[in-house]
């Protein structure tokens, strides 16, 4: 492209403790261009955008806006420099009107009193520029999701940005609504705004963007024009990685069906999910962020209600209305969000490990301290929790050791079915290897395991079978040894080649 760059990010690197999130990434976006960024979960898209938004400071690299090097110290600075972010989670106040939301940061006023007429006129002008047909006086809470999204874009647009980032803008939109969004994007680019478009929907990327940048494992794979590219090619670029990590798979004899799920559905989350897991088997549940993996797991464990469907454990139908029912049926769940659903921070390591089985170390409601200590020490040792002391508060441990404590809690219940939701996320390399050893050990003991992980190599290496979810439905079931691009085809909703 010959057009001047509105944004040039050069050699951006960013590390977090134990993880290299971005290595030497370049991004060049021209004024008036729609530039797509694609990549698997964890490829570094969000981190790169957070660097641009001033949320993270890069360890290395420079950012130029209109040819001038800038430092984006914080989100306010980034906004002032003309960078507008539209996140997936909308930032609107439902009880205020469309006009009030659009001009929230710069409400026109006279002597501290809101000038309602100016407010309405200015908001109208912004919406007209975007060719959006939304009433300025409607309450945002009464609008549809797609209309709310347009209000959010209008809010960003009202600040006269030079660059607008749209993060998965179509994930909850219908085909028709998507077209309306594309018209608005067209309005913005013809006003000279550079649009960065992040999406898992590769067809849309080809339709709307002029160029696409592919990221993989925090590195830039390629930036190229979208003319002539196919979805299959993009997938190949997204997954073609070097194997940097080896996940040893332990060979285990697979037995009878332990968990069987039929027709499990929950409105707006997933539909007609059928799964079976056998004794000693590890079933991988793959899919992109938002495909419904965690939602399915939470419903099986009773943390969320399902609208329809049946669950059987060892051939017996079980009614699961809450985690208590699930644990009674022999199901355990290591949650995705450890901080929220995993650990109880103010309690000790011991108290966390025994939490789900207190009745087993108590007589008549009184906890027997000796029995509890023995149980906790034994489980902590099995899982190599470090340090081995069980008295410290659990929140003094590192992330990996906290995760081991969560594992220990569930192993104490002697589960028949263990659901692992991102078990190694945010965990250091040593603890990660430990956790994989534990998973292999449990499978060897005959536990039926469901593994959810956004790290595709992990799922591929460890699973005996892989079920791929796409937009809340099962898109494919793949045998062991399936290739990464097969999974990605199913996960992105593309027909397998």
């Amino acid at each position: 492209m010959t057009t001047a760059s509105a944004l040039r990010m050069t050699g951006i690197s960013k590390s977090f403790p134990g993880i290299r999130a971005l290595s030497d990434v370049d991004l060049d976006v021209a004024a008036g261009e729609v530039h797509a960024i694609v990549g698997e979960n964890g490829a570094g898209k969000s981190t790169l955008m957070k660097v641009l938004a001033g949320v993270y400071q890069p360890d290395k690299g420079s950012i130029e806006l209109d040819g001038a090097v800038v430092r984006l110290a914080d989100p306010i600075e980034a906004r002032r420099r003309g960078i507008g972010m539209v996140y997936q989670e909308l930032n609107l106040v439902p009880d205020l009107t469309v006009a009030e939301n659009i001009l929230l940061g710069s409400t026109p006023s006279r002597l501290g009193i809101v000038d309602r007429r100016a407010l309405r006129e200015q908001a109208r002008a912004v919406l007209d520029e975007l060719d959006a047909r939304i009433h300025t006086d409607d309450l945002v809470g009464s609008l549809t999701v797609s209309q709310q999204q347009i209000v959010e874009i209008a809010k960003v647009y009202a600040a006269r940005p030079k660059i607008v980032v749209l993060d998965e803008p179509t994930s909850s939109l219908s085909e028709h609504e998507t077209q309306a969004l594309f018209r608005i994007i067209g309005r913005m680019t013809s006003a000279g705004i550079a649009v960065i478009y992040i999406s898992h929907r590769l067809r849309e990327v080809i339709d709307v963007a002029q160029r696409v940048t592919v990221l993989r494992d925090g590195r830039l794979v390629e930036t190229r024009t979208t003319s002539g590219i196919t979805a299959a090619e993009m997938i190949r670029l997204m997954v073609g990685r070097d194997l940097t990590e080896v996940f040893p798979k332990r060979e285990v004899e697979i037995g009878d069906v332990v968990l069987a799920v039929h027709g499990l559905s929950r409105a707006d989350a997933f539909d007609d999910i059928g799964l079976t897991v056998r004794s000693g088997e590890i079933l991988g549940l793959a899919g992109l962020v938002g495909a419904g993996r965690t939602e399915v797991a939470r419903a099986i464990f009773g943390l969320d209600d399902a609208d329809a469907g049946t669950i059987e454990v060892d051939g017996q139908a079980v009614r699961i209305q809450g985690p208590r029912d699930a644990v009674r049926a022999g199901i355990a769940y290591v949650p995705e969000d450890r901080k929220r659903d995993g650990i109880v921070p103010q309690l000790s390591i011991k108290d966390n490990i025994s939490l789900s089985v207190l009745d087993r170390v108590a007589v008549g409601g009184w906890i027997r301290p000796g029995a509890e200590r023995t149980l906790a020490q034994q489980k902590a040792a099995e899982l190599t929790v470090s340090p081995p002391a069980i008295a410290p508060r659990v929140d003094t441990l590192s992330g990996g050791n906290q995760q081991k404590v969560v594992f220990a809690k569930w192993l104490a219940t002697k589960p028949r079915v263990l659901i692992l939701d991102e078990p190694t996320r945010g965990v250091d390399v040593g603890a990660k290897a430990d956790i994989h050893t534990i998973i292999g050990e449990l499978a060897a003991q005959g536990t039926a395991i469901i593994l959810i992980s956004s790290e595709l190599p992990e799922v591929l290496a460890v699973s005996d079978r892989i079920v791929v979810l796409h937009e809340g439905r099962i898109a494919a079931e793949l045998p062991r040894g399936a290739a990464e691009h097969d999974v990605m085809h199913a996960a992105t909703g593309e027909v397998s080649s």
Partner: protein
Amino acid sequence: MNALASPPTRTVERGLFSTYGARLGLPAGIVATMLVGSLLSDRFLTLQNLTNVLINMSIVGIIVVGMTFVFVTRGLADLSVPATVAVGGLLVLGLQPSIGTVPAALVGVLAAGIAGAVNGWLVGYAGLNPVITTLASGTIVLGIAQVFVGGVIVYGSDPEAQAFLTGRVFGVVPVIVLIFLAIVSAGHLVLSRTVIGRWSYAVGSNPFATEASAVPVRRVRAFAFLLTGTLAGVSGVLLGVTLQTARPGIGMGYEFDAITAVVVGGVSLLGGSGTVLYAFGGLLFVQLLTNIMVLQGVATEPQGIVKGALIAGAVAIDIALRKRGGRE
């Protein structure tokens, strides 16, 4: 299991003060108060005076035990205490002539317990805000109590029961104080040693993880209010019998005295930490301070100012400790 060694654990650094300050501050405060008291007045460090302090503590102290559970489970506070105290006091005296003191006392405690159970259901199971719920239920229950007695004072007719409660074992400790200390001990053991006690801490610390750990979170929340209602009923019965007179307003102010004691005792309003023993210590501290002020002839109004400052100070310390400890 043959697993690789993990890298060294990251331990959150805590200074000596934040580790032990919270635990030693209160006992030190109590000792200091006693020293100051004995220096200021000869009458302070006498058996007679200290026994009086204990008697004064007993009624509200029983409520403090329940309020500790409410705080620990992150149930904020039970504001229906004045009503449940009144229910206990009015019922025991009102029913005394017809069914006798002991059955009347049981009915009083049971009725207050039912009010507590309703609170528990509304807060724990229906998920309503505890402050608003107990404010509303307290107003309703007090209204019912007033209808029951016709808005007038009820007088007792059993001086023997009164004599029993105020009578002294070994000529020293009044029976009512023994009942109070027994309830504090039992409450402390339940919170520190039983399953429901452990669950109470877990619910207050992180209700989401606790629910995901197959703990009946709603039942635990409800239990704290059931307990507080029941214990407030016990307080009301003891108050009614010792005074041999009860009005619908007899419980007024106990809720705030109990909250003051619990907060000064270092039990966090945000849940998950604190013990009954420390809440008892908080109560003792406040009572000793009040006693000294009374002995020094300080008027009631400045006493209120001091108590208010104590609550604010205790909350400030709690927040400061949380920040130091890196908890949130």
